[in-house]
């Protein structure tokens, strides 16, 4: 193991390490904690200049109450959910199939198609902005959640295919072969042999895509408008425009907007990290 385990170091070193850990974490999360503190302060603290002192009163309930009951935040959150979940399902479903096709079959275009997905996935997606917006307008899907979902599914399919294909290549091929010997159709092999084995990959990928899509801001701005269809990342800017200089409310709003992927991460940590690091280790 590298570095050498601290348990084997001298006692002063061990103590130093153990104090350094919380201190460094504190510094690391300092900007975030500042926002958390802001979000439970009363408005008065900001007008009187008490930015960094302890809150004069604890207003968590009032501040978060206003975010939830007096703004469009709940609608934005719902939009985010209605955009994120279908995208996750769509992208994962499509990439199970593409990943299966590219991982199992050998045909001439295989590597080229695979590289197309990979290359497309690496593109700075802003360059697609003008054509994708036009396409969405032509389809009559501008300013709809559907329009946004369709684009997200398409774009994420690139990354997901890379992921799934590499995962499928690690599966034992003997299983597929023996199924073929028994005359099982290709589709049934996919459905009953491969898919069950892909469960960990599906879990990891779902949680990862959930985070990516939930946090998307650019496409939300390009393809949607207003509380009817915009997700919370875009909504938070409208929310802030409404409460400019009301830092306690803006902080509370930001925390609410950031929370779902954070909760997801802590609940599904193992899958999340498995997803991120697939391919990072051989």
């Amino acid at each position, binding site marked *: 193991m590298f570095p050498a385990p601290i348990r084997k170091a001298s006692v002063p070193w061990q103590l130093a390490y153990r104090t350094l850990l919380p201190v460094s974490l504190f510094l690391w999360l300092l900007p975030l904690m500042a926002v958390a503190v802001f979000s439970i302060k009363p408005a008065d603290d900001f007008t009187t200049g008490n930015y960094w002192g302890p809150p004069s009163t604890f207003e968590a309930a009032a501040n978060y109450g206003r975010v939830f009951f007096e703004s469009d935040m709940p609608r934005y959150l719902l939009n985010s959910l209605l955009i994120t979940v279908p995208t996750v399902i769509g992208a994962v479903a499509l990439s199970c199939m593409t990943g299966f096709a590219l991982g199992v079959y050998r045909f001439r275009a295989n590597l080229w198609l695979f590289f197309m997905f990979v290359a497309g996935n690496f593109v700075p997606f802003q360059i697609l902005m003008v054509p994708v917006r036009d396409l969405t307008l032509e389809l009559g899907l501008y300013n709809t959640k559907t329009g946004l979902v369709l684009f997200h599914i398409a774009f994420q399919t690139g990354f997901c295919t890379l992921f799934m294909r590499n995962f499928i290549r690690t599966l034992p091929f003997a299983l597929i072969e023996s199924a073929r010997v028994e005359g099982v159709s290709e589709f049934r092999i996919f459905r009953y042999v491969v898919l069950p084995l892909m469960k960990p990959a599906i879990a990891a990928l779902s949680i990862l895509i959930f985070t990516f899509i939930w946090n998307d801001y650019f496409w939300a701005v390009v393809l949607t*408008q*207003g509380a009817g269809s915009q997700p919370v990342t875009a909504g938070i800017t*409208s929310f802030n425009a409404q409460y400019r*200089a009301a830092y306690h409310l803006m902080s509370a709003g930001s925390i609410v907007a950031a929370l779902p992927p954070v909760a997801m991460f802590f609940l599904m940590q193992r899958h999340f990290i498995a997803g991120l690091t697939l391919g990072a280790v051989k």
Partner: protein
Amino acid sequence: MRFMLPAAALAAAAIASVPASAGLSGNLKIFLDTSNPAPRATMEAMIARFGAQHPDLDIETTIIDREAYKTQIRNFLTADPPDVATWYAANRMRPYVSAGLFEDLSDLWEEPEIAENLASTKGAMTIDGKQWGVPYTYYQWGVYYREDIFNELGLEEPATWEEEKANCAKIVASGRACYTIGTKYLWTAGGWFDYLNLRTNGYDFHMALTQGEVEWTDDRVRAVFAKWRELIDMGAFIANHQTYSWQEALPFIVNGEATAYLMGNFSVAPMREAGLTDDKLDFYQFVEITPGIAKAEDAPTDTFHIPANARNKDAARAFLRYVVSAENQTIINNGENLGQLPVNAQAAIDDDEFLRQGFEMLSRNSPGGVAQFFDRDAPAELAKVAMEGFQEFMVFPDHLDDILERLESARQDIY
């Protein structure tokens, strides 16, 4: 007003004292950019009143964030147009007019009710001899200042540039900044340029400049920046203004770290909310700079339009008639609602210190003309480059030559 209306409609119109077409039905889709809480409530109430007169009309209102709206209007006008949409007057509507996306509303403007009572804003709604929308509100710009601090320092409302600077010198000496401003989103600096130019060179020159007929490297333009620089060198503006939005610049005047704000009248509401009562806050017209030049003001007009591809244009026209009617204008512009000036000459102006002063100023003391605002009078693309230059000038006044050359080359490109 159309003649030969059925009796029932006439009766309804009489009750509502508003011209209305008979039997409006179907859907009416309205897009609004009035996303701030007070204007939003005002508009919603207005639409509800209109809806009550037309029970068969199914009205669907969408409120879009004011900043986001400015980019999104292009999309929905082409793709999924509503029947009515808010926008701004003057050059700001030109791209949509040229692209044929706004309905020609000259017919509305021939109706006596509108022709007579809205005459003052007709110019701002006219492009190529036709009218493309109706105004629903406008507001004055000017200097909002801390009356109590002026009293404390023994200052009077200034009338000339020298008095303005003399006041400012005393304010700076008292450890305050003269003006708060937040230029992160650039347009606030456009307000300063408008006034300095209008007062130094007059309305006609200002219009010629924003229409691209004058070179930015012209000495008359330099004279404007020279005046601006006098203030900058005094330390008149708050520091770090380039990081703040206009709202984030409010606390400086509220807390007394700055004494004045060159702003539109919409800033009164948040200042009052923050605790500046009418005995602490007052207003004066931007001072004279070149003696003898007729004073002109910025008074941006907010407007309603009918997209050319709207589906229910009859209902949309009826709605616009209702919007500009004297009765509705009186309600939506009063102090509890928009707190701005009504566009209908028959409407009553709310008894509010700032509205009264603004109305007075615009009707009696603005002989030079009424400009819309820098980013509404100049084409959008030039406005962006120019306002960026203004912001840079306010931070680095020495970059002036470079800024003006950049603006000049942009001008040659754009017009």
